[in-house]
């Protein structure tokens, strides 16, 4: 039963990633693209955790924690660049 639910959830998050990719390619404003990138990072974390459940090893949590940190920092840096034209003033 867990296997079927895992396949379903993986399909859902894969479809979500494709939608984010579409928004990142077409989004009319730069903020839309940053938002799509941020959501892509969140969905990628979900996929990594799902893979960790599938394999049954706790190794992938460090990976997802690192991806979460890098994603947050990149979102803030990109927004900061749009806002001030500079990242570290």
């Amino acid at each position, binding site marked *: 039963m867990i296997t079927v*639910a895992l396949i379903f959830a993986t399909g859902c998050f894969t479809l979500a990633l494709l939608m984010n990719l579409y928004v990142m390619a077409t989004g009319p404003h730069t*903020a839309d693209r940053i938002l799509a990138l941020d959501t892509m990072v*969140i969905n990628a974390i979900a996929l990594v*955790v799902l893979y960790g459940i599938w394999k049954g090893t706790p190794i992938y949590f460090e990976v997802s924690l690192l991806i979460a940190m890098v994603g947050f920092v990149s979102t803030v840096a990109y927004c900061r660049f749009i806002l001030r034209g500079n990242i570290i003033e």
Partner: protein
Amino acid sequence: MSILAEILIALFLVISGIFGLVGSFGLVKLRNTMQKLHAPTKAATLGVGGVLIASMLNFLLVKNSLSFHELMITLFLFLTAPVSASFIAKAYMLDSVDQNELPPTGRDVRWAGYDDAPEEPD
């Protein structure tokens, strides 16, 4: 006990998958940027939270080993999602919303981001 645990984990996985899909679908469907901010910052974050709860339950009930890494990831995501949403909203406002359209702040300083920060009082 085992079948109950499997049902619980599968339920969390299915719910979180649907939440993640709805969040990203809202990103495509909603019209302007300020509306688009609502979907991923709430629904997608909740979806990841569901996956992490399912993972924690999986390791607790099936593998019999308690792990707290998921709580750290959930805490980090729930802390950073509003911050990044606020930053994205600011980036959009500065570019597309005129300062005169915004409501008054009710104090001496105007909306943040449009001007430089006020001087710190000594």
